[in-house]
């Protein structure tokens, strides 16, 4: 069983379109049945830049969120627009402490433009809300799910993200102990 926090806090680092943030807030509130607060964070990201890899260190950023922004009363998800990596992997979309207080997610690799395709805001919002809900799911104690359409399904490519829904499967929802929003 996962303890229920008072709220979920999303902290944006860098520029995000207001519309994108508002859309994902709605979906997160719907899935977790908790109020979602959003605020801006200020970090000198250059300190987290790895000159060899030309990416930002996801482990250190997660550690920073945990140290500076998290508390026991809420789950904190840092939102970034830079390319994240961890030492062992070439990139990550995001990561979180399992059953912990903090997580991070990046919109950088979710944009069509990165793959030479014309940008599509609807697709981008859809991917970003899935990524945010996925990382928050880990923070609420959920591990990867084998259900192909569950939001907790592991995704290593954007195509994988597009295949799944932005909601939890019944099994993950039951572990999350959050009532099904459709049955309220």
């Amino acid at each position, binding site marked *: 069983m996962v303890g229920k926090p008072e709220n979920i806090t999303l902290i944006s680092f860098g520029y995000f379109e207001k519309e994108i943030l508002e859309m994902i807030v709605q979906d997160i509130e719907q899935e977790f049945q908790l109020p979602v607060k959003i605020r801006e964070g200020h970090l000198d990201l250059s300190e987290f830049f790895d000159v060899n890899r030309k990416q930002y260190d996801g482990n250190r950023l997660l550690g920073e969120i945990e140290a500076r922004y998290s508390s026991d009363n809420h789950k904190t998800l840092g939102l970034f627009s830079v390319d994240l990596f961890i030492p062992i992997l070439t*990139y990550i979309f995001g990561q979180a*402490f399992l059953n912990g207080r903090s997580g991070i997610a990046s919109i950088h690799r979710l944009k069509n433009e990165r793959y030479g395709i014309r940008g599509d805001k609807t697709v981008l919002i859809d991917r970003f809300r899935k990524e945010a809900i996925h990382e928050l799911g880990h923070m609420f104690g959920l591990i990867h799910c084998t259900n192909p359409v569950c939001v907790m399904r*592991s995704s290593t490519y954007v195509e994988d993200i597009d295949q799944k829904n932005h909601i939890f499967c019944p099994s993950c929802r039951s572990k999350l102990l959050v009532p099904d929003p459709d049955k309220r």
Partner: protein
Amino acid sequence: MAKKISILIVDDEQSVRDSLYNWFIEDGYDVECAENATKALSLLESSNFDIILADIKMPGMDGLEMLRRIKSLKKDSVIIMMTAFATVDTAVQALKDGAFDYVTKPFDPDDLSHLIRNAAKQIMLSEENEILREKVISLENVEDLIGKSEGMQRVLREIESVSQSNASVIITGESGTGKELVARAIHANSPRKYFPMVSVHCGALSESLLESELFGHEKGAFTGAVYNRKGRFEMADNGTIFLDEIATISTKMQVELLRVLETKSFVRVGGHKEISSDFRVICATNRDLKAMVDKGLFREDLFYRLNVVNIFVPPLRERLDDIPLLVDYFIKKYCHSMNRPMMTIDASALKRLEEFPFPGNIRELENMIERAIVVGNGKKISLKDLPLAKEKKLPTFESLDDLEKNHIQQILDKYSWNVTASAKALKVDRVTLYNKIRKYDLKAPK
């Protein structure tokens, strides 16, 4: 039932260990980390890991040396080597030394997921293969258990009633009556049927070999123990262990066995770690265990622990009704396995089989039929194809007197009632022989 895969990460860089740890935890694996090869080897002494993900370049013992050491302890370990400085030579060396795969850091998230999924699949497949192999062995002969005689019907009823429980069973009966088949039938009809039935022929092994066979051993526990080896109790986890010829085990092994049956845990020979296993025990013996207990040759506490249910398998001579059925069954079985046209049996040969005492029981009958199919004309088994053709039906004597009377009669007949020659053959004096003739009222043929 899906097994949870355990992973050991060995890397001297904290950030790498943490990254991999978080990644695998989110995938639902059991994960542990070691910062060097020495720590990893020490962890491997006390715990089993399905997959070991190890860096090649580490201070102290490097990954390749660690790979060789782990492989020498547990040759079926799945080890994936990682390096930031890939060269063809190290890759080839790692794979030659038994690494499952070799990857260059950093890798794509998808490559890592695939790698672990493939390794997990390999582990599942080899475990499933082992279980299926045991299951095929345990099932292939169950159908041999046939018979319409009252004795056999009783055995079948007892198998049915005992199968669903977890109770220990002792199967008694003469050699060759099919005690192991009864054990396999119990296992095959029990909820444990999807797990292995492991057989141990206690009588065929010396005390030390039996100990190592049952409990397993660690590398170096004794001369020749070059690998860590699982014991039969460990292999029978969730399944059944069948201990044949249980009456032959030594007093020391009786004590050990009692302890294992009570705790369902044991330590490998030369090891320290307590290993638990959930098994059901079925034993067999052709001896009277209760009489052995009374004589102090078998521990009473072990006897009662094992003898929750007793199934007696009757000898073939007490189930003569089953001989035609068994003959028919063995003919079909061996004609099929030898790829020959179906044969029949001559009525006189079958009658002779029904009169034969079969001291070796069903095993002897089965061997006779197999031989007859090999040497026969390919159409019908006749008396000349059976090795009992020249043998007479053995008389059954209850008392020594009957035996003596019959023997003296045979010798007197052989020497045409020449008392001197008969006494000489019997190695008694003539007076004794005359006394015996009088005692047994023996008469010369007219």
